[in-house]
């Protein structure tokens, strides 16, 4: 983690998340206009897309930490990679659920196998879900850390594939809101989207830091127990 980011204390990050989340919800329901085409159900966009982008960010962060582990081997990089991928899977599951609700509302179906964006995201989600099977099927130690790091790095290739799939395959079902001409929405909608994204990234950061603190405390207590017994 860059030094400046690490200097932000957990309480500051947590209160920023609360502030950003409150502002985001107020903007979604009281400021952003109701979409003329989709109506009220378009408001799912403000939670679904930032959650999906947050899960990409978490998987990317996990892969970056895995790369750092293989390259420089700093202590704790393996644990940081694990915590980031865990957050990514949580946000990935939420992406699939909120996406299904939006699909049902807009297209009348919960899921379609014909949309490349949906299928590639599901593959990405399942790939990183299997990371935990690998991690918990190997004894803790350097070998497990190396295997998990290599696996996490392989998965990161799926992120641009998932992101670009609708742009490359002319997907007519899943809408493309961001294209080469910028965001295809009103300024007020884009502002609301940006605040929602900031709120969710701050939430992921808070969850990541809390999980890491818990894991580190757990491992120190284990060491202490070994010393005392």
């Amino acid at each position, binding site marked *: 983690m860059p030094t400046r980011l690490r200097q932000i204390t957990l309480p500051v990050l947590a209160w920023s998340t609360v502030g950003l989340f409150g502002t985001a919800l107020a903007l979604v329901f009281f400021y952003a206009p109701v979409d003329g085409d989709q*109506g009220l159900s378009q*408001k799912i966009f403000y*939670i679904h897309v930032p959650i999906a982008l947050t899960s990409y960010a978490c998987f990317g962060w996990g892969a970056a930490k895995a790369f750092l582990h293989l390259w420089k081997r700093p202590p704790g990089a393996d644990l940081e990679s694990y915590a980031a991928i865990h957050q990514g899977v949580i946000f990935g599951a939420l992406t699939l659920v909120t996406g299904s609700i939006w699909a049902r*509302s807009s297209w009348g179906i919960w899921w379609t196998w014909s949309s490349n964006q949906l299928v590639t995201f599901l593959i990405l989600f399942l790939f990183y879900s299997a990371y935990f099977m690998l991690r918990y099927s190997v004894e803790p130690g350097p070998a497990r850390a190396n295997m998990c790091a290599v696996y996490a790095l392989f998965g990161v290739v799926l992120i641009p594939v998932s992101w670009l799939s609708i742009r490359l395959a002319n997907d007519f079902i899943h809408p493309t809101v961001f294209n080469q001409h910028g965001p295809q929405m009103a300024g007020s909608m884009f502002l609301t989207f940006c605040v929602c994204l900031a709120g969710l990234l701050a939430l992921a950061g808070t969850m990541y830091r*809390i999980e890491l603190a*818990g894991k580190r405390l*757990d491992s120190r*207590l284990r060491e*202490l127990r070994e010393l005392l*017994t």
Partner: protein
Amino acid sequence: MTSGEKYVAAAYLVVFVALLAWVAIIAAKLARLSRDAEELVELARRRGEE
């Protein structure tokens, strides 16, 4: 409540419930760590007395 309102409420509620579940899991983990720490303090105290 219209159909659109129901779907919007469901999507935001899912996120809220997931967040609550995560908080509950972390609270349970913290309680376990607190118990472990108390146990270790007791163990260290007994060691000191010996």
